C-alpha cells in the first residue's frame, strides 16, 4: 500500500539508551537512518547511506565525531557533509548524507524526517509520565509487521480487552462500554470511558495492594497527541482518596507502510518505593503487548490496513474516526491536496476505498 503516514511530524527514532557509543542503523518511514552520539553526548541522525556506493553508514565506524564509511572510507561530519575521501586529495563538491533534526528527550530520541525547515514549527509532545516526579516508568520496543494506523486504531478502541486479554480483564467487565466522551481539536483527540464498578483483576490487586472483596470504579482515558504518540490512562478509585493511575504511552513509528516500531511505555503513580510492583506491572504489560502484536499482525497479513479501514464502524469507533480525519488532513496539506477533499475523504463511502489513511 501507499505510505499513509505524515512526514512532517516528530517520531520516536529510538530510546535514549539505544544510542550509546556505537552506530545504530534503523529504517524509519521507509528511510534508512543511522543514529550515533558525538563525544559531547549530542545525538546525530544521518541518512544511512554512503553517497558513493550506497553502503549503510551504520556498518562503518566513528573516528572521534566523524563517521567513516566501512566500504571505501569516506568520512562524514556531523552535518552529514563528506569531508574526506582516502583515495583522492579533494572531496567532490556537495557530497553529503542528509542530516535529520533530532531531539534527545529521555527516554526517547525524536526525529524529524519531513521538510527540514518545518521541524522548528513543531515540538515532540511532552510526556510528563515518563520523566516527571511522582511516576515510575519502564517499557520496551518491538517491531511488528502491521501498518502504524492499525496500532493507533487498536489502542483507540479498548473494547477488545475482554476478548484479547481475558486474564487481565477485571471480573464483571467482560463487556466494556463504548466511550463516554470524545473531544477533538485540530490535531488531537481525547476520549474518556467510565467503567461500572467491578472487582479487581489479579494484576490490579497485586499492583495496588487494594482489598479484593469489593468493587472499584475505573476510568479509562487517552489522547491521540500526534501520529507518533497515543497516551492512555487507567485510573482505579481506591476509595481512599488516592487515584491509582497507570499511564500507557504508545510511541508509534512507521518503519514502512506495513511495519511499525512500537515503543510501548508504562508508568504508574503508586507504590513507587516498591520496585517489585514496577517489575510485576512491566511483566503484565509485556504479555499484553505480545497479545496485541499477534492480533495486529494477523490483520495485516490478511485484510491489510486498507481492508481493515474499509470495515464497518461501531459506536466504539468514535475516536478512531476522528483520528482518521486528522491524519487525512495532515496528509492532504503535506501533499498539496485541498482540505475539502481531505475532510471528506475518510467519511464518504466512495472515497474510503482510495483515501490513504482510511
Amino acid at each position: 500500500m501507499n505510505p499513509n503516514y505524515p512526514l512532517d511530524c516528530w517520531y520516536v527514532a529510538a530510546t535514549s539508551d539505544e544510542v550509546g557509543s556505537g552506530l545504530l542503523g534503523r529504517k524509519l518511514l521507509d528511510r534508512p537512518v543511522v543514529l550515533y552520539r558525538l563525544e559531547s553526548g549530542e545525538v546525530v541522525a544521518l541518512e544511512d547511506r554512503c553517497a558513493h556506493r550506497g553502503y549503510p553508514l551504520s556498518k562503518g565506524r566513528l573516528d572521534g565525531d566523524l563517521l567513516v564509511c566501512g566500504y571505501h572510507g569516506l568520512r562524514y561530519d556531523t552535518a552529514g557533509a563528506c569531508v574526506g575521501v582516502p583515495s583522492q586529495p579533494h572531496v567532490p563538491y556537495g557530497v553529503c548524507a542528509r542530516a535529520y533534526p533530532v531531539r534527545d528527550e529521555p527516554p526517547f530520541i525524536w526525529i524529524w524526517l519531513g521538510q527540514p525547515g518545518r521541524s522548528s514549527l513543531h515540538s515532540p509532545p511532552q510526556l510528563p509520565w515518563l520523566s516527571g516526579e511522582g511516576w515510575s516508568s519502564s517499557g520496551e520496543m518491538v517491531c511488528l509487521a502491521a501498518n502504524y494506523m492499525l496500532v493507533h486504531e487498536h489502542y483507540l478502541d479498548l473494547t477488545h480487552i475482554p476478548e484479547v486479554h481475558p486474564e487481565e480483564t477485571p471480573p464483571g467487565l467482560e463487556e466494556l462500554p463504548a466511550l463516554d466522551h470524545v473531544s477533538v481539536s485540530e490535531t488531537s483527540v481525547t476520549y474518556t470511558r467510565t467503567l461500572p464498578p467491578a472487582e479487581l483483576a489479579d494484576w490490579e490487586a497485586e499492583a495496588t495492594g487494594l482489598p479484593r472483596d469489593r468493587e472499584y470504579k475505573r476510568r479509562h482515558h487517552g489522547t491521540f497527541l500526534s501520529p507518533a504518540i497515543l497516551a492512555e490512562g487507567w485510573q482505579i478509585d481506591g476509595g481512599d482518596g488516592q487515584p491509582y493511575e497507570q499511564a500507557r504511552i504508545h510511541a508509534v513509528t512507521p518503519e514502512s507502510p506495513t511495519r511499525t516500531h512500537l515503543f510501548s511505555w508504562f508508568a504508574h503513580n503508586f507504590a513507587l518505593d516498591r520496585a517489585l510492583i514496577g517489575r510485576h506491572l512491566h511483566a503484565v504489560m509485556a504479555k499484553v503487548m505480545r497479545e496485541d502484536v499477534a492480533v495486529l499482525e494477523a490483520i495485516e497479513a490478511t485484510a491489510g490496513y486498507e481492508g481493515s479501514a474499509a470495515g464497518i464502524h461501531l459506536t466504539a469507533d468514535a475516536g478512531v474516526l476522528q483520528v482518521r480525519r486528522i491524519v487525512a488532513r495532515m496528509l492532504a496539506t503535506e501533499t498539496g491536496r485541498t482540505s475539502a477533499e481531505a475532510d471528506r475523504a475518510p467519511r464518504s463511502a466512495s472515497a474510503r476505498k482510495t483515501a490513504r489513511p482510511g
Partner: protein
Amino acid sequence: MVTFLGFGAAEKLADVVSTPKFEVEELETDLMVAGRDVLADGVVALRLEDPTGRPLPGWTPGAHIDLILTTSLVRQYSLCGSPADTGTWRIAVLRDPQSRGGSDFVHDKLHVGSSVRVRGPRNHFPLVSAPRYQFIAGGIGITPMLPMIEAAEAAGVRWRLAYGGRKRASMSFLEDLAAYGERVTIWPQDEQGLLDLQGILSSAREDTLVYCCGPEALLSAVEGACASWPAGALHVERFAARPGADQPTSGALESFEVVCQRSGLTVTVPASRSVFEVLEDAGVSVLGSCLEGICGTCEAAVIEGTPDHRDSVLSEEEQACNDAMMLCVSRSLSSRLVLDL
C-alpha cells in the same frame, strides 16, 4: 495526576456518579488571559494560557478558536502566534463599531488574569504545501497570515503578502512585517486607495496558491480576480456568511427526510428547523459551532440525495459535487438525504 487538556472531569473520579451521555465534541477548556497588548487603533492582542500550565493542543497555520464569551455569545478568532509555542495561544481582536457584542466584550471585559472559555482549535483554512504563496490580507484579516508566513519561511518557499487597511494606524503587526522587506506590500487605503488586485494577481502561476482573509468586499474582489486561476488555487476565510449564501435554491423543499446511515436513524426535518437541530435532538453525535454556515465544523458527507447548499464554506465546485454539506444551514432539494453519520 498529569493530564492533557480534554481529560476534563476525569480528574476527580470519585465524583463520577453515572455514565454521562456519549458525545463527540470539540475540545473546550477554560484558559487564562496571560497578556493583553494594544496593537493598533481598536485592536487588542490576547495571550491565552492554561491556568495550570498544561501544554495546549497543537494547531497549524490558518487555525481558529471559538471564544465562548457568554452562552449566546460565541466568536471565532484566528490564532496569530507561533504553532511552535505549545504553551500560549495568541489572538488579535478588532473592536467592531457594528459589534454584536463579541469584540466589545473582548475589549472591555477580558483583562490580564481573566478566565475565558475556549473551544477548538479547528482549521478550515489550512496552508496546503506549495512552492509559492500569495497572501492577501485586509485589516484584521492579517491574523491567520502571520503563522502562514512563519511556516512559508520555515519551509523556505517563496511568498508575498499584500496587506490593505483603512489607514496605517489601524493596521496591526506592521513592525513585525517590516523585517520581511519587499516581500510585504503595505497598502493603507487613505494613502493608496484599494489594493491593486489586478496587479497582484495578473501573473497567475501554476504553482502559486492564494490565501486571502479580510472583509467581504475584499474576498469577493479576490474571488472575481482569481476566476481564471486553476481550480483550488484560491483559499479564503470569511468572518461572516457570504452575501446571499443563505438564500434557498429554487426547488428547495420545506420539509424532507434525513437518513443517518451509520446510526441507522431516520428523521424528518420540518420547515422551521435546521438539519443540525433535528439531528442533535435525535441524539446523533454531530459537531457544530457557528451555526451560520461559516466555520465548517458541522460538515457531513452526503451519500445520497441533493443538498440545497446555503453555506459559505464550500466553494461552488465543492458544492456542485454534492458529496458534503453543512448541517447547520443547508437543506435539501431531494425528499431524502442519506448522510454518513
